[in-house]
């Protein structure tokens, strides 16, 4: 058997390991452009600030390929010839034949639509090459954590439209490091970049198109609370402001011009307006993709429209619990999908099931946990909300349908999502949950418990 995997992110790597555990003789080839070793994309910000070395972010020892006997090709795939069962490569390399193919090519940043975005000083924060670019803009290069992995070793085997290319560096044109910065797009990656800029001594402008920060995850109360925290750290938060273009001087940007005509000074601008499935290179291949976005359509066994081709991770549109079909851009779901895809490839009758929604994040120094349904705009839902001040600063929001709890949105404290999810599945009532909330606490030892004032507890029985 010849297995070929495109992508050595979490989905591709976990699939390869799962394949090897059962198929000790199969030939397993991993084609991936971005970097030599599997690293944790979620940890890019820590490498940038110098909190972690690149090696720290690699989940396995570097001898993985040798130990598992994987063939490793660092080049860009240009298409899949499904009839001839082979993958075409850039740079004049021979096509790679396969019996079964797994596509785990992840996401690419959504490009900036504004004039000037191709100039030096504008970039994204998704790939290893983006990291390299931003390290040069903010710090003049990598940290002292030993030799950095090569960001451009694959250039001869890539193509100009690849997201895995280092952007032009304004700091090098200008002859000095960035002193001002802007982050455009108020999501999770955006706030991560804001934090790394603060760590580099820059108080960035944070431009958010919506009425409040991160509207897909937190509501206005929570967001106002977050914005306060950000301002305490020196971030210039701009809500409901859109970009018109970048102001450019001698090939490098100097400011971001907003539609209302203000120039916000920025030596570097990081555009974090979301990610798209990284599948343009499949345009001419006969593998079905979604009209909008272009994610690869897969069935519950993660098989694509071609029976010998599978897809997993950020690039695959899987079915969600509510019947929607779209990619899950998450680390742990990518890992699970990679493992399920591997079993499916080996012929097991498996289904990938989107069972529950939960996530956690850290927004500057605030920890965030969510579980269940916290979407907004459902008429039949209401929220029980508690803000805590004192030695612990937190907010607790429990979303209910009538008396039944359907979701949790928590900032500032640690919670065990497994317990929260169980309560939701057991259809517990709000007052039942409030009486036992402490059982789901996951704070470190000695952190004072969350105290629920009496009048708040009384609200549990009367819908707001």
């Amino acid at each position, binding site marked *: 058997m010849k297995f070929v995997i495109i992508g050595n992110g979490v989905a591709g790597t976990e699939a390869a390991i799962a394949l090897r555990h059962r198929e000790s003789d199969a030939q397993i080839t991993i084609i991936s452009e971005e970097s030599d070793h599997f690293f944790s994309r979620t940890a890019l910000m820590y490498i940038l600030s*110098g909190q972690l070395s690149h090696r720290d972010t690699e989940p396995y020892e570097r001898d993985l390929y040798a130990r598992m006997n994987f063939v490793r090709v660092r080049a860009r795939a240009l298409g899949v010839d499904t009839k001839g069962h082979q993958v075409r490569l850039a740079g004049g390399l021979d096509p790679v034949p396969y019996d079964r193919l797994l596509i785990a090519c992840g996401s690419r940043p959504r490009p900036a639509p504004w004039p000037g975005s191709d100039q030096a000083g504008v970039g994204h924060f998704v790939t290893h090459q983006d990291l390299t670019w931003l390290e040069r803009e903010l710090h003049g290069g990598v940290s002292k954590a030993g030799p950095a992995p090569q960001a451009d070793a694959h250039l001869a085997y890539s193509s100009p439209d690849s997201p895995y290319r280092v952007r032009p560096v304004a700091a090098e044109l200008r002859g000095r490091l960035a002193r001002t910065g802007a982050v455009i797009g108020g999501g999770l990656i955006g706030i991560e970049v804001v934090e790394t800029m603060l*760590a580099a001594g820059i108080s960035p402008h944070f431009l958010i198109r919506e009425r409040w920060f991160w509207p897909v995850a937190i509501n206005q109360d929570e967001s106002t609370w977050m914005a306060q925290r950000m301002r305490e750290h020196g971030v210039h938060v701009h809500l409901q402001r859109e970009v018109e273009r970048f102001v450019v001087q001698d090939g490098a940007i100097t400011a971001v011009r907003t539609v209302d005509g203000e120039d916000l000074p920025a030596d570097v601008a990081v555009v974090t307006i979301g990610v798209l499935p990284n599948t343009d290179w499949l345009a001419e291949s006969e593998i079905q993709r979604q009209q909008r976005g272009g994610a690869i359509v897969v069935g519950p066994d993660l098989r694509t429209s071609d029976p010998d081709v599978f897809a997993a991770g950020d690039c695959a549109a899987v079915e969600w619990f509510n019947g929607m079909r779209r990619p899950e851009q998450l680390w742990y779901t990518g890992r699970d999908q990679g493992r399920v895809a591997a079993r499916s490839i080996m012929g097991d009758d498996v289904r990938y099931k989107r069972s529950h929604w939960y996530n956690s*994040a850290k927004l500057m120094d605030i920890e965030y946990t969510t579980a269940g349904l916290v979407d907004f705009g459902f008429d039949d839902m209401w929220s029980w909300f508690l803000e805590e001040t004192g030695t612990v600063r937190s907010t607790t929001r429990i979303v209910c349908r009538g008396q039944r709890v359907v979701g949790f949105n928590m900032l500032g404290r640690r919670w065990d999502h497994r317990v929260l999810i169980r309560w939701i599945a057991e259809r517990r009532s709000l007052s039942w949950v409030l009486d036992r909330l402490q059982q789901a606490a996951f704070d470190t030892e000695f952190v004072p418990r969350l105290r629920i004032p009496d009048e708040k507890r009384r609200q549990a029985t009367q819908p707001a």
Partner: protein
Amino acid sequence: MYAQGQNGLMSTWREHIRSRGLAAWILAAVMMGFYVDLYWFDHLEPLAQALGLRNRWFLYGGLYCVLMVVGGALYLRRHGNSRYNQIRISVNVLVQVLLAFTLPYVMPLLGGKEFYFSYFWPLKYDLLLPDTLSKLPLYLSIYALVGSLIAAPILAFFFGKRWYCSWICGCGALANTFGDPWRHLTSKSTRSWRFEQVSIYLVVALVIFMTAVAGLGGLVGDAHPGFVSFAGQTKHVYGFVVGSILSGVIGTGLYPLLGPRVWCRNFCPMAGLLGLTQKLGRFRIRVKDDMCISCGNCSAYCEMGIDVRSYAQSNLDFTRAACVGCGMCAHVCPRGVLRLENRWDLNADKDKQHLVVLDF
């Protein structure tokens, strides 16, 4: 100071002194030189006397206290620390300042004996020798015996070895305060783990052998002068190699290059024995299932070189003999995946069921 705040990002690898730059090498050389001078020369005596201290060991003790207090304050500021670490580090520093410096200084002035309440066998390797015990007042010899042989293992069984290594011990106190900036330098390689497993239990065996031989030497007395001198030499060699070179010159001197727990991880016999008790006991680190993003912060900042991430990303609760319960893996984890705990209810795990399907 908040009870649960992590600070923003650290710039660890962008600081020369924390990333094995020239400054780190110079500091390491100075510190090793200091220990050599302290142990085998008496250049520091005049300075000690000038400061009104009894001898150079109290000068060292005073310096130790200053480094712990200043380092401890910086440690809390650096990490914006959790309540656990605020309490832990304060207790540890306080215990050291009181029991390892002030009390031993004051006791002789009041006509008592200089005694260190915070040290037990086998870390203080000669504490249980007949020679030592017989010179102590009865209550102190009982304290030494009960503390070393009964209380320490029982506490480690219920709370993990952290009760000593991260709450009481002087080596731990210095490592977690003054030594904290270098905690990420502890090697996480499989090779270093193998080395540790051999070296630490070797020292445990040595200290037991040495205690037995020297103890016997004390008992047989003058009847077998050959054996007595052999026992004396064993103790002397152990003291030189383990007590001075490994714990001082190398253990502390190499902070800026190899991390602050070289001694605790590889050579301390107390840590070795308490670690075995911990393995059998109630302390563990609990992992929240399917929440780890494999970022590597926990492993990087584990001063004992434990690859915490390998457990976290596989949803495995764990207890490692080496773990000193410093709490930093849990603290730096950006997804709150880890929790240190002492299990009281052993049935609590039974409901660690897998996540259930939601239906709306």
